[in-house]
């Protein structure tokens, strides 16, 4: 009866012996390693899960702010649609990139940088203004000579109109007279996807030369103010919508990270159990081998 129970154990034991011949000490060390790994991954899963929940809560507010900013920006740009304003290209173009300082949001910033490089190829010799350290770092690697301004502390939370106005004021101080200002931002398609798009902020010349501007009664001085105001309005829209895309992307990235962590936890848990059983089996083999040997003696 002893021998029958022992046989499968011996078979398993010999299999273990043929494979690696680990000592019990080594078995337990490996067990501890796996335990350590499991602990780290469980911590990571807790963190990514918390970040996902935080992003979900912030997403509702960010989306509402985006909706308001869209209505605001689109209303501001209606006059340019009606006047049939077109961007000019006789002088330099200014590209403004609406990014932010924070990462862990999937391809938000790299997508913007890629889109910016593409637009830059269409308008070579453009100047670039970048909002946000992430896109700044990426663009500084490839287009450092084109950068004229960079802003930090952007879009930490929902951007304020005051932020957009302050940026517009610095852009107005740039020495160059730009015939076109293109704001590159992430457009929110749905909770799972976004894509880089451009909002045109027309120069004063482009406005006065609009095909249908004569339909409007307007004061010349008011036009200069309208130009600055519209720039701030479009910047605000781009920043608010970009912010919503970022929160949404972070939520998705953290959700994926949590899922991956969860899968790893399962794998390592199975590995841990197998290793633990192998360690016990190894011990049993030793005991039984020892017992058999002394019995034979």
């Amino acid at each position: 009866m002893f021998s029958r129970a022992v046989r499968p154990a011996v078979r398993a034991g010999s299999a273990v012996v043929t494979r690696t011949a680990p000592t019990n000490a080594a078995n337990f060390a490996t067990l501890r390693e796996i335990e350590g790994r499991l602990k780290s991954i469980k911590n990571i899963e807790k963190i990514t899960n918390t970040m996902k929940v935080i992003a979900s809560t912030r997403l509702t507010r960010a989306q509402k702010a985006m909706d308001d900013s869209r209505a605001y920006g689109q209303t501001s740009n209606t006059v340019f649609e009606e006047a049939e304003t077109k961007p000019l290209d006789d002088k330099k173009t200014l590209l403004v990139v609406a990014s932010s300082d924070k990462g862990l949001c999937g391809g938000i910033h790299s997508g913007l940088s890629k889109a910016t490089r593409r637009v830059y190829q269409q308008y070579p010799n453009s100047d670039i203004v970048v909002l946000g350290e992430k896109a700044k770092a990426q663009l500084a690697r490839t287009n450092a000579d084109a950068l004229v301004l960079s802003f930090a502390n952007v879009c930490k939370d929902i951007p304020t109109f005051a932020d957009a106005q302050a940026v517009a004021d610095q852009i107005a101080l740039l020495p160059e007279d730009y015939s076109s200002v293109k704001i590159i931002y992430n457009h929110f398609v749905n909770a799972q996807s976004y894509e880089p798009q451009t909002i045109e902020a027309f120069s004063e010349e482009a406005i006065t030369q609009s095909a249908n501007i004569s339909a409007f009664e307007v004061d010349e001085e008011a036009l200069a103010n309208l130009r600055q105001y519209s720039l701030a309005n479009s910047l605000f829209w781009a920043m608010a919508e970009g912010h919503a895309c970022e929160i949404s992307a972070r939520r998705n990235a953290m959700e994926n990270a949590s899922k991956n962590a969860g899968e790893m936890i399962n794998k390592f848990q199975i590995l841990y159990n197998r290793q633990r059983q192998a360690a016990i089996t190894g011990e049993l083999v030793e005991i039984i081998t020892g017992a058999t040997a002394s019995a034979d003696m």
Partner: protein
Amino acid sequence: MVAAWKSAGLTYNRYLAVAAQAVRRSLKDGPRVAAERRGVMELRFAKWENGKQGESKALGQANVEAMASNAGSK
């Protein structure tokens, strides 16, 4: 006829921001709290030249200084 704020070097956006702030501060306590948050602007910026980033400065202060130096030029 040039507006008074323009001769002092202020930009139109600055004029709007000052007016907006006065309106927010005129509110009753209830709506005022949420409104005042909209006036917050704590950005920093840096000028770039020849591929090199310059000194990082507070944006609000820099804009005020720029307006002071532009006064009377318009």
